[in-house]
């Protein structure tokens, strides 16, 4: 069952690579949040109930509800154009993400560690690298943020793989989530309206040599 959830997560990455509208990205993020919620419940069977509840609450509240909603709110408030504006064509993006997944599968073949479920490894790394790819291949700052959240989702999958032995590390991952949400969304976007009157957030590209 966990495998099904994780593979669905990997499939959403392919969909994300060809999505055009920002709203589609947000919907996928919400969906990924629910997938992770399910995967957390199914994987972390040996963690104390209180801790498990805390982690699951975080996934559902932060990953599936608060962050996507907040990004949607920012898009509306700042009147950001609702197209993703990638630098590369959709076909090329699809190919790149497919390649990322293939390479991680091949890489996982070289691991001779019986302690690790390879599905976790493949899905986590491909989500991580797809997130990084989304960051470099999209123009808007808001899509960079979305890419970063995809990276975090990937990292969260990886932390689930060791979660039963070291629940501390999962909690650390939860902290990372909250930290990034506060820092990136809170500090940055609450202020952006005060400083910038421009409706789009593309003006932050002057600082160079």
């Amino acid at each position, binding site marked *: 069952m966990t495998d099904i959830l994780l593979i669905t997560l990997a499939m959403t990455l392919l969909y994300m690579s060809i999505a055009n509208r920002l709203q589609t990205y947000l919907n996928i993020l919400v969906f990924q949040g629910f997938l992770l919620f399910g995967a957390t419940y199914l994987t972390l069977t040996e963690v104390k109930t209180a801790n498990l509840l805390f982690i699951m609450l975080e996934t559902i509240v932060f990953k599936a509800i608060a962050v996507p909603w907040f990004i949607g709110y920012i898009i509306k408030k700042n009147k950001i154009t609702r197209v993703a504006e990638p630098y590369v064509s959709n076909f090329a993006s699809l190919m790149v993400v497919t390649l990322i997944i293939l390479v991680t599968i091949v890489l996982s073949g070289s691991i001779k*560690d019986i302690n690790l479920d390879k599905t976790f490894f493949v899905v986590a790394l491909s989500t991580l690298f797809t997130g990084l790819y989304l960051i470099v291949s999209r123009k808007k700052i808001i899509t960079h943020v979305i890419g970063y959240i995809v990276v975090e989702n990937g*990292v969260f999958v*990886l932390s689930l793989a060791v979660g039963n032995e070291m629940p501390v590390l999962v909690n*650390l*991952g939860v902290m990372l989530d909250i930290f990034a949400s506060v820092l990136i969304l809170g*500090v940055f976007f609450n202020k*952006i309206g005060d400083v910038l009157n421009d409706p789009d957030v593309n003006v932050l590209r*002057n*600082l160079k*040599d």
Partner: protein
Amino acid sequence: MVYLFLVCSALLAIGLFINKNRLVNYVLVSVYGILLVTFGVYEFVNQGISHSLFFKPDSLGVLLLSALCIISIPVLFHSYRYIELHKESETPHSRGMYFGALAILMSASGAAYLSNHIAVTWILIEITTLSASLLIYHHRSVKALEGTWKYVFICAISITLVYVGILFLSLAMKQAGIDDMSYDSLIKNYSLLNPFWLKLAFLFIFTGFTAKLGLVPMYTAGIDAKDKAPGPVSAILASALMNVGFVSVYRTYAVIAHTPYHGWANGVIIIAAILTVFVAAVYMTRVKNIKRLFAYSGIEHMGVVMLGLAAGGIGIYASILHILLHTLIKPALFLQYNQIYRVYGSKSIYDLGNYFKYNKTGALLMLVAFFSVTAMPPSGLFVSEFMIFQSLFESHHIILLIILLVLLTVIIWGFATNVFRLLFIPPVSFDETNVPKISPWESVLQYVLIIISIYFAYNTPGRFINMIEQAVRIIN
């Protein structure tokens, strides 16, 4: 003691955040300065005695903490001058935010030096990112926002990479059945760690920490941050915060240095380090913003330090000495920058010039600091850089050494053209009527920093030599 220090710092920072009174503000800042120095002295005296699972005042941590204490005094003093000089744009709120965030940044850096657990280091580095972003955004302008945004975003990605590295490290330990992630336990059990995961973990952790350390690939965050942050903050970012990256990489490297993958890790570090020096050389010949020039000089030094570390032998000793001296010298440059800005109202090299005419003491300091930072004798950095060259020679990295020497020559040339232009060539269309008079007393602390660095390099006290050697022993 570390916990007590962190709690007191947090209380003082909260006090600074909520307080609106000017006098109370400066009293709290002074109390913080005393607290930091007391903490430094306490850990120096009680070196190696640990009361806690997560912190251990070993010699490397104590050395860097002492350096932080020394630079904290000029930084706090110049912060006070900075806030007073920008009176019209400062509010009690912005002043409180500035000093509160500065206190948190320095405390988190100081505690990170002593951290003995990779997860604790990670959390403290998160805190430094948070507080540094508040400081970079101090002026609330569009460009400051851009600098902050880039810094926050790249640091967020790098902290995620470190986290992935920690997860891989836990996989490496899982097989061996170890669950203590402290550096001591990792070094003790190095032979049990799964090599595949260990290598992957090192790669991710190293890449992540390069954002703080200022190496390729993540160095860009620091450059923009130092450019946009207020001068005294840049001084901390360019010294104490880079040391946090160094100490984190050093401790992780110490684990892998015990395993048969030592050579592989050296290869990784050498590639990143030489690329860093190359990037610094390219930009320092082109860059026309004097503050960015100083920032690039910082990453150049980090590249040299990491080359020394990878070369091994005397290079490890030299790299620790180098980073200590760099911590003293670089703040002098950044603190001096504010005087330049007050005279010219610009940081573009095209608007600067003839500095000796407008501010003699400051100009002389710039000249001395220039010689210090480019490691020309009698600079202290000359000693450590020379030892690093020697270690590269001894470890048969001859081609690498030649490339490094060529790049360093280019860097000195790039640095000199800009600094000599600032000092001697008359500026074009500069209105002399409103040049403020700058008191020579404002440069005294910078001179002191440079004199300490020279004295320390040529006449290192025996106790410090022992401490550096102890720090080297973590690796060997």
